[in-house]
């Protein structure tokens, strides 16, 4: 890992790891809100599993960032002591949990994305990022099967479930575009074979989503709107409320160990 000896790259990698960590933490947090709220017990358990997987990834990414920073930081410093403007997750992850259809559509979008993204991250020149990707790929395959199955069941279920799915597709569509966009920092890391170039994944992503939606008798939205800004800390008003709850106890007792 010669790259880590270069200071500039290190700062970039820390930031990149935090981005991926933030995506995981915030989505995991939203999924965890389903505890005791699922449509039946099996789903309380399954959604809890997915939430745990994302929480686990967040911890790995943050821990790696903390190691690189060499400032004695811990995973918790990143989760609990940064502000809304410091979080760099994609907006899609921070939107409220919504109803079950909304949660399933978001998961489908993200699972298809991760199923394309993680195998490339597994090839990263950064061994640590590659290792995290390796651990996550299997989980994502399971998540994806679940999302696809649910999408088909709900799309091709009752009229109500079909409508709810179609509505959620419409509401979430504008948030997918930023998944495939990169800034200068990621461009630098792509050049070093560290970060994944996701701009090339959009066609494949759309093809797979289309296939699943077709099976589910659902229409692919054609709306043109796009909202972006997560990577720059430019968030919707939902994230602030999530953080004020999430960080409340930790911030209340500065320096305490748990």
């Amino acid at each position, binding site marked *: 890992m010669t790259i880590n000896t270069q200071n500039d790259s290190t700062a970039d990698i820390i930031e990149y790891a935090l981005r991926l960590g933030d995506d995981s933490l915030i989505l995991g947090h939203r999924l965890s809100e389903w505890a005791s709220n699922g449509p039946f017990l099996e*789903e309380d358990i399954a959604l809890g599993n997915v939430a745990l997987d994302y*929480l686990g990834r967040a*911890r790995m990414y943050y821990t790696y960032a903390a190691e690189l920073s060499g400032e004695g930081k811990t*995973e918790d410093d990143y989760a*609990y002591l940064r502000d809304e403007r410091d979080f760099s997750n994609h907006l899609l992850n921070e939107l409220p949990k919504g109803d079950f259809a909304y949660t399933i559509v978001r998961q489908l979008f993200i699972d298809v994305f991760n199923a394309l993204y993680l195998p490339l991250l597994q090839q990263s020149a950064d061994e640590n990022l590659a290792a995290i990707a390796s651990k996550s790929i299997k989980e994502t395959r399971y998540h994806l099967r679940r999302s696809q199955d649910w999408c088909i069941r709900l799309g*091709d*279920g009752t009229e109500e479930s079909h409508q709810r799915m179609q509505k959620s597709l419409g509401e979430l569509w504008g948030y997918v575009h930023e998944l495939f966009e990169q800034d200068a920092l990621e461009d630098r890391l792509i050049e070093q074979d560290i970060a994944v170039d996701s701009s090339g994944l959009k066609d494949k992503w759309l093809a797979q989503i289309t296939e699943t939606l077709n099976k589910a008798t659902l229409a692919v939205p054609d709306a043109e709107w796009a909202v972006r800004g997560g990577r720059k800390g430019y968030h919707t008003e939902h994230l602030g409320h999530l953080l004020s709850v999430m960080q409340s*106890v930790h911030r209340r007792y500065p320096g305490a160990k*748990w």
Partner: protein
Amino acid sequence: MSTNEQSLETTFQNKIDSELKIEPKDWMPDAYRKNLVRQISQHAHSEVIGEQPEGNWITRAPSLRRKAVLLAKVQDEAGHGLYLYSAAETLGVSRAEMIEALQTGKAKYASIFNYPTQTWGDIGAIGWLVDGAAICNQVSLQRTSYGPYARSMIRICKEESFHQRQGYQIMIELAKGTPEQKQLAQDSLNRFYWPSLMMFGPHDSESAHSAKSMKWKIKRETNDDLRQKFIDQTVPQIEFLGLEHPDKALKWNEKRGHYDSGEIDWEEFYNVINGNGHCNRQRIEHHVKAHEEGAWVRDAQNAYNAKVKQRQAQAVA
């Protein structure tokens, strides 16, 4: 009672007396079946309702590690609910019927979950004391006479001991932490100690179901014996934490080889059971709300499954 029934009942009681398990297809007295359905479903409901007070702190857990552990624990509780509903279903009652009984107040759940979780310390105290009390009960139920219930208990006990250790770990971190953290620990201990003792139910002399349950070995130990075990095991744990014991009348009784303790406030016990706890209404409303919000999902799943069946039938024809 007919001669036939008498002979069946004799065989049944002999089986129990010889420590053989009763299995779903075996003959069993109606009262045994009813008693079991009541107890197992109440136990299942307790696991499910128990998701709420602890779930209340998932979004606020003060470290990522604790968040993951708590989330996994709440998930385990849902899992325990599942095993137990399945065990009860072997007795001829459906999960939907049991849920209906819970929501309409016909079936009960452990009254401890009507107490609110007010601080992070409560998550420690619940894991340590509430799960601890539950385990005392459940360990003895591993030998209960009904096979499916006994087997669920074996599986559940393993996870519960794990939960109890995790809860105690939270308490250790707090009690050995800053003065403010120690205060959190003491406060949670104070609030959850007595309700945990109440979890074992009324004194044996007052307990409605005990005698029959003991004869049928549904219960293997009495409420008071189990409670004593719990009181005794908790004393050194409190000492290790360096916290004050909430029972000021507690005293070692050399002759009995047990701790004597102060009297439980049974008025509070019945008060909370009878609907005056902070969360009685909230817990059921929450359950009903989640269930109603999920109705369209269950409907959709059924509709989809029916479609698939129909398509398969058409493909075959």
